[in-house]
Every structure is written in C-alpha cells, then in structure tokens.
C-alpha cells in the first residue's frame, strides 16, 4: 500500500501552486486593465484636447470673419444702392447707353464726389472712402478714364488691367488688387449698374478701398499670424519668412478643416476662409496660423497628469488586489486543496478496490484450481480403500477402520464439491437457469432423506406449507439450500428435540423457515455465521466445515432471494430463506 501514500505526497503541493497561479493571473489581469484604461484615457484626452483647441480656434476665426463679412455686406449694400442711384442719373445713363463712354467720367464726377477721397484728405472712416473709381462696360472691359480726369484715382496700366472682368457681373464682386510698393492690397468692389428700363446690366462701377481688417479683440494665441493669401502673396504679418511655407493646396484644404503646417520650423495650425466666395476676381483667402507650441505644452502636461493618475490607479489597484485576491483566493485555494485531497482519496480507494478485486480473482481461481486438483486424488483414494475393504482376510477392526477412512473420503469430496461451487460463484461463473421448481415436493423429498438417516437424537419433524408452492429456481441448487438448512437443523439439535419446516407466500415472495431446538447461536457469533469456514464456536464433536450457510446464502441470492437468521435464542434457532414465486 505504498503507492497511494506516494501519490498523496506528490499531489499535496500543486493546489497551492495553482492557487498562487490564480493570484498571479488576477494581478496580471488587473494590471492589464489599468494599463489599458490609462492608455485609452491618454489617447482620448489628447484627442479631446486637440479637438477642443482646434474647435476654439476655428470658432474664433469664423466669428472674426463673420464680423468682417457683415461689414462687407453692409458696404456692398451701400454701394449697390449708390450704383442704383447713379444709373438713374440721365447723363450717366446717356453716357452708358448712347455710346458716349468718354463722357462717363465727367458725368459721374459730381455724383461720385462724396465717395472718393481726395488726395491728402484726412477721412474719418477710410474704409468707406474709395481710393479710386473706374467703370466697366457691359462686356466687363475697363472704360478708360480721360487723361484729364485726376480725381478718378491714379492706377497703373497693370493695376487697371486687374480690374477688368470676363463679363459684367450680376452681383457685387469682391477682389483684391496688389499695388506695387504697398503692404496691403486694395479691396476692389465692383457693383453692377443695371438699366432702369430693362434691368439688364449695362456697366459696373469699380471702387477701390483700403481693406476692412478684422481686428481680433484678444488674440487667441500668442504668436498668432494672420495674412491675406492672394495667389501666394501675403500681407499683414507675413506667415513666414519663406513665402512658400503655406502652399495653395494647404490654404484650400484649410478652408474645410484645420491643417497642420510647419512654418519656420515650428508646427502651426492653419485655418483659412475664402474672403470673396463666388467672385469673378481671383480667390483671396484670410489665412490664420496658430503656433501649436502652447497646445503641445498643454498636451504634455495632460499626458503627465493622465500617466500619473494611471500609475496611482495601478498602485492602488495592486494594493487593493493584493488584499482582495488574498481574500478571494483563500476559499479558492481551499477548494483546490480539498478537491485535490478528494481526488487523492478516490485514487487510493480505486487502487485498493482494484487490488482487492485482483486478490479476489486470484483466490477464486486458486480455489477452482485447487478443487479440481483435489477431487481426483480423493476419488483414487476412496477406490483404493474400497478395494482393500473388499478383501476377505480383514479383521473386524481393520474393516471398521477402513470404513471410517472411506467415510472420510466422502466428507472430503463433499468439501471439495462445495469449494468448487463457491469458487465458481466467486468467479462469477455460476449462472442459474431459473425455471419453475415445486418447493413443496422438494421439502417432502428432503424430509424423507432426513428421516432415513440413522439418528441417535430421535428428532420430531414438523412441516407446514401449502400444496402448490412453485418458485423460480434451479432444482439442484434450491435443493442444496434446503439440504444445508435441514442438515444444520439436525446437527445442532438436542436429543428429543424437533425440527420445523414451514413455507408461505407473501406477495410475490415465498418465505421458507427452517427452525430447530438447540442451544442457539451465541450473540457474538450471529454476525459471522454466514462467513466462510466459520462454525460459530461449535464444538469439535459436531461434524461440518463452515461452508454450508455461506453456500446456502449465496445460492439463495442467486435465486433472487436471500437467507437470514430469523431467530436464535437458548431454545430455538430459525433461518428464513426468501424465494421468488415462479412467473405464472
């Protein structure tokens, strides 16, 4: 029995190891979760910050430009009204309609006197005083002013060429004109002049203004740069020392979403908006570049904050998990240990069972072999003895001794027979062929045999059983049960005693009782009387070898019934055998 012991020692360690593994897994999982949450928080918070900053800048930029747009719209409305009034003037109308464009400027001189700033004049609102005016004819071409006209504002030929349009516009057009040697471009507003009669556009008035500048109340960020972007030409604070820093493509992309551009080696967020949407003049953009250094600094600070928070959470989590896992894992550990012990016990039990089964098998096989080996010599012995007995020259004493020896050989055969039967049953090789057996007939025959045996005890035999008593059994073995019980009842009786055999049907079963007078079986021995080779402390003067009851019980069980001791006291011992009624 060393194997189960070794197994028990071997499996006493793994449960602890496994419980430890569970704790490690718990810690690793918690760490991973905290790290994951921290990383996600880091990414999300950075994205949020960037988005918030971009949104803020975008909103501010749009708000400023909205104010600018509003100012422009008001100016457009004013100028449109002015042009409507202009065209109502008969002389201007005449000059335009009667092919007298040379008279246009002289005719308009008086009408436009208040709108054009005189050179050197200090004006309260420069944005509403034009620097120059020109007319476009119905085809959008410039109507050249007469040489003498000084108050139309001086423009170079190239500048004048920039005012012309592919056609006379239906709507006011906003354009920007570069002037050599000037930082700021001139805002050009070309307002259509429509015929009062037919409504068709017959000309356009071009006015040049100092640009309206959207001045931010408070700059959104230090170092913010703004510029008007006009085909690569920039005004105000230059976006960069290198004019190519912001490409046309970047400017156009920045209209829909902020674009990151590196200007002078530093990242900037560039926003832009077209100032003259739907204009026939070349596109002009208000471009704003915000340095991202501040955003990056805030991102860095935020990153450290999130990382710090993550580390704190991780630390707290680890501490908490240490205690939590200790509490959690204790029952789990116990469970693991318990289940391991259970398993070990089961293994042990199974091993023992197997061993027992093997031993049983071995002993059964031994009994069977031994019985066979014994039967033959006993038969030879008996034949030899009977041959001796048949000799004539034997004395009476010799004859008696030989007869006793022959008797002993019969006893030996009987034992061997029983052992053989038992060993067959043990080996599971005995199968009864159950058939209807008349129990009453069997009892009568057995009682006859009992009566025929010469006996000194002078027993009285009683019986009580119904006439037809058919049970399920195999006659040979049913008879053996009955014989064993009657044999015992006779053997352990007292002189002048009695034997009582009774049988009755109880439901599906038949109960056979065999009782006898006698000393009874001691209480201590009653539990062992069905064990093999047990003789219940009977004296040596009683013949028997302790196999009968064991055999009877096992046979009764093979009949689907049982055998038990019903009663045993000072005067009466009674066995009770159960059988099944034969199926009708």
């Amino acid at each position, binding site marked *: 029995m060393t194997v189960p012991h070794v197994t028990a020692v071997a499996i006493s360690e793994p449960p602890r190891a496994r419980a430890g593994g569970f704790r490690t897994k718990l810690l690793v999982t918690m760490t991973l979760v905290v790290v994951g949450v921290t990383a996600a928080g880091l990414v999300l918070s950075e994205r949020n910050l960037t988005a918030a900053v971009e949104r803020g800048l975008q909103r501010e930029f749009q708000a400023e430009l909205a104010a600018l747009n509003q100012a422009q719209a008001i100016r457009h409305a004013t100028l449109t009204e002015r042009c409507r009034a202009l065209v109502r003037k*008969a*002389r201007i109308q005449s000059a335009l*309609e009667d*092919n*007298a464009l040379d008279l246009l400027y002289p005719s308009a001189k008086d009408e436009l006197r208040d709108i054009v700033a005189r050179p050197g004049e200090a004006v309260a609102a420069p944005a509403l005083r034009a620097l120059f005016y020109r007319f476009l004819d119905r085809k959008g071409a410039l109507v050249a002013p007469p040489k003498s006209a000084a108050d139309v504002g001086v423009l170079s030929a190239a500048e004048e060429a920039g005012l012309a349009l592919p056609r006379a516009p239906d709507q006011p057009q906003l354009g920007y004109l570069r002037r050599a040697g000037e930082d700021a471009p001139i805002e050009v507003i070309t307002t259509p002049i429509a015929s009062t*009669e037919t409504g068709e556009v017959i000309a356009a008035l071009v006015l040049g203004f100092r640009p309206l500048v959207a001045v931010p109340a408070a700059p959104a960020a230090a170092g913010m740069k703004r510029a008007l972007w006009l085909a690569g030409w920039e005004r105000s604070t230059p976006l960069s020392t290198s004019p190519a820093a912001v490409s046309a493509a970047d400017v156009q992309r920045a209209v829909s979403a902020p674009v990151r551009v590196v200007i002078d080696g530093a990242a900037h967020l560039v926003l832009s908006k077209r100032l003259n949407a739907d204009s026939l003049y070349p596109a002009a953009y208000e471009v704003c570049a915000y340095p991202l250094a501040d955003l990056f600094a805030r991102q860095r600070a935020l990153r450290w904050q999130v990382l710090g928070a993550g580390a704190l959470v991780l630390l707290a989590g680890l501490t908490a998990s240490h205690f939590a896992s200790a509490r959690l894992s204790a029952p789990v550990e116990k469970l693991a240990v318990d289940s391991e012990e259970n398993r070990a016990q089961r293994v042990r039990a199974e091993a023992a069972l197997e061993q027992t089964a093997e031993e049983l098998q071995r002993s059964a096989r031994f009994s069977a072999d031994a019985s066979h080996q014994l039967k033959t010599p006993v038969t030879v012995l008996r034949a030899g003895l009977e041959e001796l007995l048949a000799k004539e020259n034997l004395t009476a004493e010799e004859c008696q001794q030989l007869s006793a020896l022959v008797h002993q050989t019969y006893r030996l055969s009987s034992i061997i027979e029983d052992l053989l039967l038992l060993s067959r049953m043990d080996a599971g090789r005995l199968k009864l062929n159950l058939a209807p057996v008349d129990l009453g007939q069997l009892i009568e025959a057995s009682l006859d045999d009992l009566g025929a045996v010469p006996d000194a005890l002078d027993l009285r035999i009683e019986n009580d059983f119904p006439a037809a008593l058919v049970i399920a059994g195999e006659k040979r073995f049913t008879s053996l049960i009955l014989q064993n019980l009657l044999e015992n009842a006779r053997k352990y009786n007292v002189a002048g005693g009695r034997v009582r055999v009774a049988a009755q049907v109880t439901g599906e079963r038949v109960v056979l009782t065999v009782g006898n007078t006698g000393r009874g079986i001691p209480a201590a021995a009653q539990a062992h009387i069905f064990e093999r080779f047990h003789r219940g402390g009977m004296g040596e003067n009683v013949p028997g070898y302790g196999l009968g009851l064991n055999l009877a019980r096992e046979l009764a069980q093979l009949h689907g019934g049982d055998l038990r001791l019903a009663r045993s006291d000072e005067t009466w011992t009674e066995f009770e055998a159960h059988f099944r009624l034969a199926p009708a």
Partner: protein
Amino acid sequence: MKLRVLLVFVVMATAVAQVGAQATLEGRVTLPKATTAPVVNQRYEIVSKGGVIATNPPLAVVFLVGDFPPPATPPVAQVVQKGLAFIPALLPVQRGTKVEFPNLDDQFHNIFSYSPAKRFDLGRYRPEERPIPSQIFDVAGLVTLRCDIHEHMRSVILVLDTPHFVMTDVAGNFRLTGLPPGRYTLKAWIDSKTTREHAVELKDGATVRVDFP
C-alpha cells in the same frame, strides 16, 4: 397729332416743289412683334434693349437714298415736351433740319444729347423761354434726346441724308409720293441696329410697290 400731320405736309410740300416729275412708292414693312402690349392711345415710346433703340410698338422709317441736293432753306421741325414726355418720340428729319424743342410743361426741362451724331445741352429752361431753344442737325445718324431732370424722358431724332422719307403705320404700311424718276435704294429703318434696303427704279407717273420682308 396735328403738329405731326402739319410737319409731314411741310416736308412733302418741299419735296414736291423741288422735283417736277412724280413717282410713287408704296408697300409694307414687316415689323417685329411688340415687346409689350400695344399702347392703347396710339402713342409710342422709345425703348433701349441690349443697346438697341427702337419704338414700342415697333414702327419703321422708310426713306429713299440717292444723290439729293441739300435743302435751300433749312426745314424746321419740333419736338415738344409735354406731360413729361417728348412728342414725337421718333422724329425723322432731313440733314440740316432745325429742330425746335418747345417746353409745354409748367416746369423746367433740360434737354441734352450724348449721341455722336449730335452732342448738345440746352440747359434748364421753362415754357416762357424765347427764342424756343433749337438745334440744327447737320450730321446724319441717330440722336437720343434725354432730359437731365426727368431721366425717364427719351426721344430719338433720325437724321437722314434725304428729303424723301415717311413713317409707317403700326401695321408697317407706307406710301411715298412725288419722287423723282431714277434708280435708288429704298431703306427701312426698324431700330438702331436694323435697316433693311431694296433697290428700286422709279418711272415717271408710275407707282412701285416694295414690300420689306
């Protein structure tokens, strides 16, 4: 109306006096469709669309182009200002005609023209102004009259190089009489951008029919 009839009569009389032989031209000018609903009171106005000046409802001036001598004495015609409008709105005249512009409204008018054929500015004047302000139109072409005070007022004087001209009725019918025999080109002015022409040979006492498609 009386004035116009009188004017035509004067012009005709002049023509007849100059030429002894007589020929007649008559026919029909296919006129464009009216751009607006026909004016009920038979008045017509000058409209300018896409730089093209025409009358509404459309009328044509039919005139005979040839080598005619200038008038001995300048003919005189009138464009009056009445009810804040020029009457007539379209006046054909022979080159060299003196056109008077009497003001029949009880307020100022200021007639001027920026047209290349005749640029002038009569300044502001009231009905009492004497002599009646006038201009001699000595260059053939179209002259647009405007009033500097009333920008809606518009009139056209068509200065022609011939004494033989007539305005069609609204259906486009015309008739020119007292024409000298010979080979000519008959023209029909429909608007400032459209003039149709047709070669004609006139014989003494004969009536020739010319239809402008």
